[in-house]
């Protein structure tokens, strides 16, 4: 989807990050610059943990601001985005590094990043219940926001239609 968006020139600090990511991971990741300070790194679930560890230890991204999941029923995939931010990294406060990972819908499993970034805790739980994506290694993957008696499919899946709306509205 993001391919259609016009690519922009990264800021100097972001440029260094892109270079360092490319030189370390090479073909395993595809790095896109969405805006001068928004870098998007696409990878697969096998490399996600290594990439996150690298982002924390080498690139000084110290916390996760957001985890979002998107359902793509046409591709039968679910896309998980981790948005990483930095407080202590030099000149990095304006940069958001997005780690993107796509998993197939029928096998929605992903290694949890909670050991690397403790701040993903509640975001991962929310993504788990909203999209049914299992984060392996998360200590307390339980219901968070939905009522206790929720028995439908996870609501953020595109297959779930809102009850208050007619079909196709």
């Amino acid at each position, binding site marked *: 989807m993001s391919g259609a968006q016009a690519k922009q020139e990264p800021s100097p600090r972001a440029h260094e990050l892109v270079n360092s990511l490319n030189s370390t991971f090479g073909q395993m990741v595809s790095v896109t610059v969405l805006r001068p300070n928004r870098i998007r790194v696409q990878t697969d679930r096998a490399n996600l943990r290594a990439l996150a560890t690298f982002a924390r230890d080498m690139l000084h991204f110290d916390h996760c601001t957001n985890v979002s999941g998107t359902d793509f029923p046409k591709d039968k995939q679910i896309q998980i985005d981790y948005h990483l931010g930095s407080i202590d990294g030099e000149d990095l406060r304006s940069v958001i590094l997005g780690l993107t990972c796509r998993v197939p819908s029928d096998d929605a499993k992903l290694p949890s990043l909670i050991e690397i970034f403790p701040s993903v805790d509640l975001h991962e739980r929310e993504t788990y219940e909203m999209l049914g994506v299992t984060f392996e290694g998360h200590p307390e993957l339980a219901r968070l926001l*939905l*009522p*206790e*008696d*929720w028995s*439908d499919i996870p*609501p953020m899946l595109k297959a*779930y239609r*809102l*009850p*208050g*709306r007619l079909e196709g509205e």
Partner: protein
Amino acid sequence: MVAQELEEAPKKPGPGSKSDGPGLNILVGKARQVIQEAIVDPVTYLANWGRLYSLWPVHLETACCSIEWGAVSGPRFDAERYGILEAFGSLRQCDLIVVHGTVTRKMAPRLRWIYDQMPEPKWVIAMGACSITGGVYFDSYNVLPGVDQLVPVDVYVPGCPPRPEELIDAFVLLQDKIRKSNIR
């Protein structure tokens, strides 16, 4: 009120029926009237007068209308003028639930439990469009389309969120309703 009147309507004797007269004995009828006028009515008046000036609301915030509730109890609007005292944490001492907006499916059983635990008599004000019909969340998967399926509502206050003046108007309406009611 309308519902009550409808329920009572068939019980009213029609014109010309036997119970239309003064009863079996004029003395008993007079005594009944004296008791009614001397004891029952003043007691009713006192109870209703006490109730309408002493409505203590439960501290139950279901959603975002609680901000305007805060404004109502604040200095500018000051609900305490009407005897509405928001100082009691325990629902055992309260008489009024103000449903502050949206009631979600997770909150709904709690709201009902709270209503059931309160001592009689008790009143409910549905504040905000969400608690009346669901409001902007009418199509949400987790929102009740109105709380009147859950608890009997006495006064509806539309608005999203209602202005504090509207809520005060609701209090006055509720007081009017209590003034005209019989003691249970």
